C-alpha cells in the first residue's frame, strides 16, 4: 500500500456488509464517487439469507402469524412500541421503506428479493422449526413462503448433523407451529440418501454445497427415491444447494422432481450468508465502486490517554487514514483518505463498529455508545444481558444513537457532524434476534444514509469526475433504466 497517495472520493463508506453495500450503491446512484473500506467480513456473511424488516407485533409462540399486518405497519408498530429503536428516530421517514426495498432489489440485480412493504411478511420455516416472518431475502430462501403453497410441504434432510438440521424434528416442530398458526399444512420429513454412504462424515456445509454444485443430478435422484407416495407441493432443502447462485440447481431439481423447491434459512456456518456477502461485493464492483481492505482510523486517536468518557474526534476530516493492519503497529504506513462525507456501516461487535476497551466505544470517531438507555462508561456487561435467552438483550442493541438524518448524536443530543452518517448494526436500539429487524433494517438505513451522504457531499464539493455517468452505469449493470 502506498503511504503517500491519498484515497479520494465524495463519500467513504466504512463496512461492506448489507448496510454498507446498500449505502454505497445508493450514494453512487445519487451521483457520488464512493469508496468502501472494509476490515473483513462481518455479520452479513454469517446471516441466514432471510432479510427481516419488522415482525408482526401480535405474533407470539401461541399465535405465530399475529395479526398479519403489512410490513410497513409492522415497522411503524415497532417504532411506536420501542422509542429507542432506530425506526422510532426514522418514524417520519418510514414511508420511504417501499422505495428503499425496491432499490435494494434493483441495485443488487435481484440478489435480494423483498415483498412489497404494503403486503404482509412472508412466512418462512426457520432451521429451529419456528415460523419466521420475513420481508424477503435471497430469492432461493424467500421462495419458501409457507403461505404461498397449499397441501403438503416436504423438509429434505441429508442425514448430516453438521447442518444442524434434523428433518424429522424440523417437520414435527413445523407441523405444530402451522397448527398453532391455523395454517392447514402437512409437513413431512424426507430423508434422502445423498450423503448417507459418504466416506466423509464431517463434511462442512460449504463442502456439501460444492458437491451438489458439481453433481445436482445426484441430489435430484436421491430426492426422487425418498419422495413419499402422497403429492408434495413444496420441498424445503438445506441451504447448501450452491456456494454461488443456487437458481440453476433449484431449476434442475424442480424439473427432475416435479415439485417446487426452495432453501431453508441457514443457522450457523451459513452458506447463504457468504453467498450474500460475495454477491454484494460483486455488485459494488459492477457499479464502479472501489472496495479497499483495511482499517479506517483518525490519525492521532491513539495519543490520548484511555478514558472512560468518549472524546469525539471533531478534527477527523484531514486525519482519516486507512491502514492495512492493526492501527497501533501500522499507523506510519497508513494511507490518507480525503472525502467529503462518511457513512459508518461498521456493524456492531462482529464487524468492529463497537468495541470494548474498559467501556464500549466506537473506534473511529469515539462516539458515545448507548446501551440500555444510557451512554456506556464502563459498566459491567453482565448488567446489560438477560438470563432468559428469548428476552431482549440490551448489550446486543448497543450502538450510536442517530437523528432522523442518520447523523450520530453526542450525549447532549446534538449531531456529531453534518458530514458523518451511520446505518445498520452500529446504530443503537435494535437487537436483531428479539426485534426481528436485521438485514431489512440495514437495507433501509443504508439506503437513507447513502443518499444523505451523497446529497451532503454534493452540497460541499465540486462534482467529481464521472459523477453524471454513475447512475447510468449502475442502471445498466442492474438491467434497468436510469432514474
Amino acid at each position, binding site marked *: 500500500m502506498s503511504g503517500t497517495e491519498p484515497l479520494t472520493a465524495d463519500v467513504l463508506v466504512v463496512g461492506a456488509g448489507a448496510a454498507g453495500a446498500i449505502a454505497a450503491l445508493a450514494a453512487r446512484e445519487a451521483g457520488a464517487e464512493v469508496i468502501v473500506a472494509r476490515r*473483513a467480513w462481518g455479520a452479513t*456473511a454469517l446471516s441466514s439469507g432471510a432479510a427481516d424488516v419488522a415482525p408482526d407485533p401480535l405474533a407470539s409462540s401461541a399465535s405465530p402469524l399475529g395479526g398479519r399486518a403489512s410490513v410497513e405497519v409492522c415497522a411503524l408498530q415497532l417504532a411506536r412500541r420501542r422509542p429507542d429503536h432506530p425506526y422510532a428516530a426514522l418514524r417520519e421517514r418510514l414511508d420511504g421503506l417501499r422505495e428503499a426495498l425496491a432499490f435494494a432489489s434493483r441495485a443488487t440485480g435481484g440478489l435480494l428479493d423483498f415483498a412489497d412493504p404494503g403486503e404482509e411478511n412472508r412466512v418462512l420455516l426457520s432451521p429451529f422449526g419456528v415460523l419466521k416472518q420475513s420481508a424477503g431475502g435471497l430469492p432461493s430462501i424467500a421462495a419458501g413462503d409457507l403461505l404461498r403453497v397449499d397441501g403438503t410441504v416436504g423438509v429434505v434432510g441429508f442425514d448430516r448433523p453438521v447442518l444442524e438440521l434434523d428433518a424429522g424434528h424440523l417437520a414435527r416442530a413445523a407441523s405444530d407451529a402451522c397448527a398453532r398458526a391455523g395454517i392447514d399444512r402437512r409437513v413431512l420429513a424426507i430423508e434422502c440418501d445423498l450423503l448417507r454412504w459418504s466416506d*466423509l462424515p464431517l463434511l*462442512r456445509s460449504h*463442502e456439501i454445497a460444492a458437491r451438489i454444485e458439481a453433481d445436482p443430478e445426484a441430489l435430484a435422484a436421491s430426492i426422487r427415491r425418498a419422495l413419499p407416495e402422497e403429492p408434495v407441493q413444496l420441498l424445503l432443502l438445506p441451504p447448501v444447494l450452491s456456494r454461488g447462485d443456487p437458481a440453476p440447481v433449484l431449476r434442475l431439481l424442480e424439473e427432475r422432481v416435479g415439485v417446487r423447491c426452495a432453501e431453508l434459512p441457514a443457522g450457523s*456456518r451459513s452458506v447463504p450468508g457468504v453467498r450474500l456477502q460475495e454477491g454484494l461485493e460483486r455488485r459494488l464492483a459492477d457499479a464502479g465502486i472501489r472496495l479497499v481492505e483495511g482499517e479506517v482510523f483518525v490519525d492521532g486517536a491513539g495519543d490520548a490517554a484511555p478514558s472512560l468518557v468518549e472524546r469525539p474526534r471533531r478534527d477527523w476530516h484531514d486525519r482519516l487514514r486507512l491502514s492495512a493492519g492493526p492501527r497501533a503497529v501500522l499507523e506510519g504506513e497508513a494511507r490518507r483518505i480525503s472525502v467529503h462525507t462518511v457513512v459508518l456501516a461498521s456493524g456492531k461487535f462482529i464487524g*468492529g463498529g463497537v468495541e470494548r476497551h474498559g467501556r464500549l466505544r466506537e473506534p473511529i470517531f469515539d462516539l458515545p455508545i448507548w446501551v440500555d438507555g444510557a451512554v456506556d462508561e464502563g459498566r459491567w456487561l453482565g448488567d446489560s444481558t438477560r438470563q432468559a435467552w428469548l428476552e431482549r438483550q440490551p448489550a446486543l442493541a448497543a450502538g450510536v444513537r442517530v437523528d432522523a438524518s442518520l447523523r450520530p448524536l453526542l450525549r447532549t443530543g446534538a449531531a456529531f457532524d453534518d458530514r458523518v452518517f451511520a446505518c445498520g448494526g452500529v446504530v443503537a436500539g435494535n437487537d436483531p434476534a428479539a426485534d426481528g429487524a436485521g438485514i431489512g433494517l440495514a437495507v433501509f438505513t443504508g439506503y437513507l444514509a447513502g443518499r444523505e451522504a451523497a446529497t451532503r457531499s454534493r452540497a460541499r464539493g465540486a462534482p467529481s469526475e464521472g459523477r453524471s455517468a454513475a447512475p447510468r452505469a449502475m442502471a445498466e449493470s442492474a438491467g434497468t433504466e436510469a432514474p
Partner: protein
Amino acid sequence: MSLRADLYLGWRALIVQPLRRLFGRVGRGEERFLENYGPEGLVPTPPEDKAMLAAASRCISCGLCDQLDGQLGAIARGDYDGVSLLPRQYARSSVELLHARAALDAIDPESYRAAEAVCPTGVPLVALAAWLRDRLHRSRVHAARGATDDVRIDARADAHGRGGAAAG
C-alpha cells in the same frame, strides 16, 4: 511418626540429598520441569508466544475461514478438519498440539491469506499456522530430551527436515 521413619527422613535429608547435589545430575528448575513435563507437550511460553495466543483467542468460531480454506478436503480428513481448528483447538493447549502433528506437517501456512482477510476478529491465521509448527517442533525437542533413544532420533529428523523448523 515412628522412630524408623524419622531416621529414614533424616538419612535422606542429611546424607543422600547433599551427596546427590554434590555428585548427581540435578540441573536448574526449568530443566527439571521440562524433563518431567516436556514429553507431555508443556513447553515454556515466552512473551511472543503469549502475544500469539492472545491473537488466537480472538477467534469467535464463526467458521468463515473454513469456507475459504482450499486445503480442507485436499488433506486427509482424519488429519485435518479446517483452518479454524488452529485458533479454536491447537492454540489453546500445547498438549493438544502433539495430536495436530500430521495436520501441521501437511498444511501450507501461506495458503491461509484469503481466509485471514475475511476473519471478522483479525486472527492472524498465516502467522498462527507458522507459529504452531514452530511450537510443535519445540515440544518435540523437549519430548525427545526426556524420552527414549528412538524418539530422540525421530526428533532430530524433525529438526532437520519433515517440517520441524519454523515456517514463514
